[in-house]
Every structure is written in structure tokens, then in C-alpha cells.
């Protein structure tokens, strides 16, 4: 039976995806409608986190400004719908293209630097767009503005929460499959190689800069889709979606789930969204009235996770069955 699944990780992954697949049904059954929103939110953050894991876990690019693409994707769709263009295909095409172009331009500059400089310059670019968003008086500035839902076909609108849920689900699964094929392809190997030893990769003759830039653009474009889905969920766009804390949150999701595992981003996103909802409730039980201050607990918890639980939840699951042979690696393997 266990041989059916390549390794424990794939087993867990399948179960998680199965849960996500039937969640709307369960929500209707239990009449807990808010589960729709929770599930969609988890999956949208998951798409963003997984895209960040591509460059962070496999390319070693610690971007501290990844949420900028959530904002850029969101603004693309919000602004188009503001002017009455609600065609989903067009909207998402613009969002993807916009994010890819921005990633290409900024990535070309960011990747000239490395280490701390890379962290800070990605942060700086995201701050730049954040302030641009605040300056857009036409689109509510600081307060944001209402966004109509994308319509793909007549009657197929992301305003329908079931459609939005499954579109997000399909995008997430597609991203996971696509990226796991990619990180194990030649391209992915070069990317991982330039993370573990860039000088050596250059010496063999690989233009590592170009490979990293392509990965950076791809990650930005994927995250832009997440942003587009996010404004469809919230029906609202504000610069706050690309605040630097959002970028920090995405990093937190990856580290909680497990760096360089791709699916760890999904686990981390679920943990993040669920702690946002349930931690206040739990804390209120232990210490009434302190629930709103859940970050007082989450902050130190995060420090402990970083210090002592670096592999993350999904990363701690062994990638082979006990006593079995090593399965084809789905993990990044850079430690």
C-alpha cells in the first residue's frame, strides 16, 4: 500500500490536496460557510509562498519584497476592472505580464548584488511600489478601492465563491506540478547548482545570472496570479497587500512549512492562516482578553522555530519510507 506513494511526503501531500479538494463539500455539509474563504485564502497565500520558495529554496535568493507581486497583480486587475474591463483572461494576462516585466527590470538590478544587499534591495523595490500605491489618489491611495470580480465566460465569474475556490485550487495544483517538474529539470539543476556553488557553476560555463533572472521572473509572474486571485477574494485592493510585513509573512510561511520543499509553502500558509484565526481564540481561553495580542505568542514561537525547527513541518517528514529505497527526490536537498 505504502509503495503506492513514492514516499511519505507525497503521501502527506496527497492527503492535504484531497482535504482541499473536498473542503467546499464539507463546508456546505457542516454549514460553515466561512471555510470557503479560509480555504481560498490558504491556497492563494500558498501560491505566493510556493513561488517564493522557488527562488529562495532552490535559487538561494532571499527576497524580502515578494509581496510586491501580490500588490502588482492585484492592482493590474483592480485598475482594469475600475475602467470596466472585467474579462478575466485579459486581466490575468495583464497581471502576469506586468509582474514578469517588473520582475525582469528589478531582478536585473537585484541580482547584480547578493547576500544582505539582495534582501534589502528587494525590500526597497517593494516599498517603492507600496508608496506608489499610496500616492494613487485615483485608486483610493492609502484607503484602497473596491474591485469587481473577474469574469472569464458569461456565467463563469470569480465572484462565485465555488468557482473562485476551484480556480484557485487548480492554479495551486498546476503551480505545484509545474514547479516540481521544473526544479528537477536541467533548468532546476542549474539553479540549484548556482545556489550551492555559484563560482563553480560559472567556471563550468553556465551563465548563472540568466538562470536566476528567469527563475525570479517566473516566481514574480506566479505570485502576480496569486495577487489577482486575492483581490477577487477580497473584492478590494489596497497598498497594504504589498506592505513589507506581508513579504515577511510569506517568508515565515516557507520556513514554517519547510524551505526548498515547494509543498512546504502550502503547509506554512495553512498554519499561518489558521493561527491568525484560531490563535486568538486559544489564547483567549488560556488568558481571557489577550486573544487580540496573539502576536505576542507568535513572535517568540517564530524565533524558536527558526532556532530549533529549521526544517519546518513538511521538511521534517522523511522523504523515504522506513527501510525502503530512496525515492526520486522531490526536495531541494540543499542544506
Amino acid at each position, binding site marked *: 500500500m505504502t509503495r503506492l506513494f513514492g514516499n511519505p511526503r507525497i503521501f502527506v501531500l496527497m492527503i492535504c490536496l484531497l482535504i482541499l479538494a473536498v473542503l467546499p463539500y464539507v463546508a456546505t455539509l457542516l454549514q460553515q460557510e466561512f471555510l470557503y474563504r479560509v480555504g481560498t485564502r490558504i491556497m492563494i497565500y500558498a501560491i505566493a509562498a510556493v513561488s517564493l520558495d522557488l527562488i529562495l529554496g532552490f535559487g538561494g535568493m532571499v527576497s524580502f519584497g515578494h509581496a510586491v507581486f501580490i500588490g502588482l497583480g492585484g492592482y493590474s486587475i483592480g485598475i482594469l476592472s475600475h475602467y470596466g474591463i472585467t474579462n478575466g483572461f485579459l486581466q490575468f494576462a495583464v497581471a502576469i505580464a506586468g509582474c514578469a516585466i517588473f520582475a525582469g527590470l528589478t531582478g536585473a538590478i537585484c541580482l547584480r548584488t547578493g547576500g544582505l544587499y539582495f534582501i*534589502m534591495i528587494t525590500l526597497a523595490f517593494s516599498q517603492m511600489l507600496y508608496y506608489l500605491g499610496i500616492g494613487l489618489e485615483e485608486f483610493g491611495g492609502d484607503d484602497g478601492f473596491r474591485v469587481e470580480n473577474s469574469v472569464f465566460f458569461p456565467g463563469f465569474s470569480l465572484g462565485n465563491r465555488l468557482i473562485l475556490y476551484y480556480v484557485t485550487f487548480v492554479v495551486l495544483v498546476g503551480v505545484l506540478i509545474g514547479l516540481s517538474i521544473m526544479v528537477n529539470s536541467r533548468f532546476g539543476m542549474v539553479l540549484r547548482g548556482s545556489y550551492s556553488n555559484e563560482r563553480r557553476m560559472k567556471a563550468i560555463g553556465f551563465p548563472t545570472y540568466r538562470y536566476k533572472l528567469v527563475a525570479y521572473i517566473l516566481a514574480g509572474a506566479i505570485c502576480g496570479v496569486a495577487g489577482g486571485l486575492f483581490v477577487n477574494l477580497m473584492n478590494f485592493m489596497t497598498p497594504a497587500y504589498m506592505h513589507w510585513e506581508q513579504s*515577511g509573512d510569506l517568508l*515565515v510561511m516557507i520556513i514554517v512549512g519547510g524551505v526548498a520543499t515547494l509543498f512546504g509553502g502550502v503547509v506554512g500558509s495553512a498554519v499561518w492562516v489558521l493561527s491568525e484565526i484560531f490563535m486568538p481564540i486559544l489564547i483567549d481561553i488560556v488568558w481571557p482578553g489577550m486573544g487580540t495580542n496573539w*502576536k*505576542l505568542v507568535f513572535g517568540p514561537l517564530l*524565533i524558536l522555530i527558526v532556532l530549533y525547527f529549521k526544517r519546518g513541518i513538511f521538511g521534517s517528514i522523511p522523504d523515504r519510507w522506513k527501510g525502503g529505497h530512496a525515492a526520486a527526490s522531490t526536495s531541494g536537498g540543499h542544506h
Partner: protein
Amino acid sequence: MTWTLFLEHTLNGLQYGVFLFLVSAGLTLVFGIMNMVNLAHGSLYMIGAYAAAWMFQLTGSFFLALAFALPFALIAGMLIEITTLRTLYTRDHLDQVLATFGMILFFNQLMIVIFGGGSQMIDMPSFLRGQLEFIPGIPYPSFRLAVIGVGILVAIGLFIIITRTRIGMLIRAGASNRSMLNALGVNVRRLYTIVFGFGALLAGLAGTMAGPLSSVEPGMGESILILAFVCIVIGGIGSIRGAFVASIIVGLVEIYGRSTLKLALVEVLGQEAGQTAAPALASMSIYILMAFILFFKPQGLFPARTG
């Protein structure tokens, strides 16, 4: 813009730059010497400001507040270093970013729990409340002048300490080869703790002086922290001189940007849109400047020649 207005903006820019320097000096020292990204530095700025606000509300004296806030920030910094950050020195930047991000979440929330979400007040000392006309025709708030003065004194003091004293020599030695210094019998761990505490003290000083000019509130550390990071990156990480030059540049760009852009944008976009857009675009201009500088000099203006 008239000549006097220009001078006034220059002074405002200088004052803002000096603030940035006080925060970024600690940041760049910690990074240059310990190779450590410390996002919690902004929290130390906030802790200093809150300590000062608490003391001020108790006694009503700015100087007592300052005298309380400085050692408080110093000790808080050392405690943070000893309990948590010390273990992070050998980790990669991602771990450092995330762990100190956790600290930010914690401290911001802690301040909300202790003091509430509202802002706290610190008044400036009475003898600095007026205006001084040290350039004929341009009256300028004395307190802001004092801030500029303190900042410049700190910059000179730091420069002397780093280049002329024994501890400065140890700091530089620790930056270039930590294990060698350790082998020579210097207690590098203690040195790091001292340097960290000193950086915290400077952040606390900046926080206290920010009290009378802006509000003391949760999250006040982050906006200045990000700008301070911009300064140390532009200046070249680890370089005090770079941090100083970059801080002044960033301060001036921000203030000039705000004032001139406002005039220009109000012309183009109309009163209301211009009023909103100008500060946002001025803030943007700093990041554009940073991208521009890093494009040509990926290591910043004054790359520190340390290992």
C-alpha cells in the same frame, strides 16, 4: 522656491538625515562586525522612545527621560543579544531576518499591551522650545538644531572611537578576522555584546529625540528601520562613514522631494491629488536613488574592506 525656504528645507533634511544616522550607525556596526541582519534594531529605537515617554510622564523632565532611556535601551539591547541574537551569528541571513522579524512582532505587540495602541507624548525641554536665528533671516526651531548638533557630535565621536581607540581597533579587528582575534585572547563574545548594546543605545537616543518631533507609537521603529537599511546599503554595509554620508543624502532627498514635488504636483494634478501624491513620490524617490546607486555600485558608496 525662495532662498530662505531652500535653506530651511536643507536644515530639515540635515535633521532627518542625522536621525537616520543614529539608527543606521548601530545597524551598520552590527552588520559589519557580526555579519548579522538585525530587524529588531527598529524595536530598540521604539523601546528607547517608550522608556523615555514613560519617564517623561512620570517626571515631566526631558533630560531625566533621556537619562533613563539611554541605559534602558543599552541593557535591553544587551539582553536581546545574550538571550537570542548570539545564537544567530553563525546562521544564514534568512534565519536572522526571520528571527528578528519575530522579535518585531513581539515587541510591537508588547508595547500595545503595556501602553495601549495610542501614541505617547514627550515634550521638548523648555529652553529648546523657541526658535533660533543663527542664519540671519531664517528662524529655526532650537530643538531641531540641537538634534543636528547631537547627531554630528555622535558621528565625530564614533569616528574617533573606531579609528583612534583601542576598543575601536578591536572592533575593526573583529570585523576582519573574528577567530584570529579570539585566538589572541580577546573575549570576542563580550566585545560583540558591548558593540550591540552601544548600537542599541544610539537607537534609543534617536528614539528619545524623535519623541517631541513625532509620536511615540507601536510600529514607529519599522518605518525608520527600513530607511536606515537603505542608508547602510547605499553607504556600504559596515562603513560608519558610508552610513553618515548616505543618511544625509537620504534625509535631504526625502525633504527636498517632499517640498519641491509638492509644489510641482499641485501645479500638475491640482491641490488635493498633489497633496497626496507628493509625499508618496518623495518616499519612492529614495528607493529609486538606492536602486540607481546599487546598479552602478553593487557594494554601496563606501564598500568596507573587511572580511
